């Protein structure tokens, strides 16, 4: 899923302080799971903002709506009939949702309420870690199911580098060395010989480097 984290309150206040009628728009997908921008977080943030502006002696209307998804036309259409009653939208969706909102309602200012961080997994409640950088050409078949592009600080395809110490990365003792994990898996699967296969220079054109990407499936288009 897409993992995000809440922006600091001060930053959010700075974004919206000049507007009177504000819609806080949550999303029921990834940001709900990572507890950054779902219905619950929308409610908490709305209360905190109301209290803040009340203390400042400012009268504001702060409404709460959480959509099934903000990255889908169908759900974003649900607010069309009321969108003109707001001066600004504070979206707690990931960057995709914020932009979809901006695309659709061209004259309404929209602000991000979360920082979109990465594609990752829930290790346990309150701990999410990165697993994928969406490079567009998956190499997991060659790396024992562990991705060095997202999990090695130098995205080294033929690792580990000389900084790997006690299974940890040179940049932090908290961070597993991705290549140590790959080697552990190769060993567990009895495939250590595969370690010596050189991974070719990667074609990064399907990555961010190739420009904004799209996936087209004509067979499912209506």
């Amino acid at each position, binding site marked *: 899923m897409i993992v995000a984290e809440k922006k600091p309150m001060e930053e959010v206040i700075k974004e919206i302080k000049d507007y009177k009628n504000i819609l806080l728009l949550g999303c029921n997908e990834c940001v709900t799971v990572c507890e950054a921008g779902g219905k619950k977080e929308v409610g908490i943030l709305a209360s905190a903002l109301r209290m803040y502006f009340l203390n400042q002696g400012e009268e504001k209307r702060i409404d709460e709506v959480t959509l099934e998804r903000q990255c889908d036309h169908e759900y974003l259409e649900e607010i069309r009939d009321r969108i003109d009653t707001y001066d600004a939208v504070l979206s707690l969706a990931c960057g995709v949702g914020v932009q979809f909102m901006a695309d659709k309602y061209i004259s309404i200012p929209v602000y991000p309420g979360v920082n979109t961080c990465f594609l990752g997994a829930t290790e346990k409640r309150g701990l999410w870690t990165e697993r994928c950088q969406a490079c567009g050409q998956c190499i997991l078949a060659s790396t024992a199911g562990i991705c060095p592009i997202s999990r090695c*600080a*130098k*995205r*080294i*395809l*033929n*690792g*580990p*580098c*000389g*900084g*790997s*110490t*006690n*299974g940890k990365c*040179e*940049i932090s003792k908290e961070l597993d*060395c991705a290549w*140590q994990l790959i*080697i552990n898996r190769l060993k567990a699967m009895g495939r*250590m010989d595969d*370690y*010596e296969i*050189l991974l*070719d*220079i990667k074609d*990064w054109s399907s990555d961010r480097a190739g420009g904004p990407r799209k996936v087209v499936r004509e067979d499912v288009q209506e």
Partner: protein
Amino acid sequence: MKEKTPSKLEKILASGNLAVTSECGPPRGSDPEAIIEKANLIKDYVDAINITDNQTSVTRMCSLAACIRLKLMGLEPVLQMVTRDRNRIALQSDILGAASFDIYNMLCLSGDHQSFGDCASGQNVHDLDSMQLIQTVRRMRDEGKFIGGDEIKRPPKMFVGAAANPFADPFEIRVARLAKKVAAGAEFIQTQCIYNLDKFEKWMEGVRDRGLHEKVHILAGVTPFKSAGMARYMKNKVPGMDVPDEVVKRMSDRPKDKQAEEGINICVETIQRLKEVTGVHGFHVMAIEWEEKVPEIVQRAGLLPRPEM
């Protein structure tokens, strides 16, 4: 191992002599004197001089310009190149630039992570990794081809090196990793600083078991400690460094004013012991900001005179 380039370092290694290299870190400014001075201190005691490439991710004068300075002095540079800061266009372009000045040696590295340096908030590139850089420069030289497949007019004649750290983890793949670098095309290796000699010799045993010592020239890396404080710092703070407790103790047991001398003694003894190890074809003396001690180390270790080529 047949010679493939005009590199003096390659010739010395091919002749069966023990090679001696050292390194200079470029200055954090544009004054060429800093490089010239360091080079003058060591030039008669080593066969080639590595120029580091923004080591520890701290912004410095570029390795290529400093290598050109050495060439202008009639010396033999080893151009260090990390994959952290440049994509494949810039790497190939700099290789050609170096070749245009007849720089004949190159060391392919991935580089320390930028978080260690003065631009921790910068991007890193890592378009290629160090093994792929080795492959790239070998292909440029041997096939006269760019990565994209086009032909190179006057291909670079680089003797291609790589680093090896016998002490990084996991130890069990350290020989396999060397084999991978050799398969990628590395012709010489400069190792991480060696303080744990037993572990290094164990690694060399594995290297010999696979016959890798006959396919690649291994230059053992040594760095003298200036003080017990430096020994402790290297042990505790530098990633991938293995400094045994007894070495730290040997330094700290000496009074402060005798520690530098003890550091040199350890370094000389290390070289003397490793000279006897089959497959060690030379030494890479990294006297960090202590270049003036290189002559003494090389002389006391019995590595003089340097061969004329």
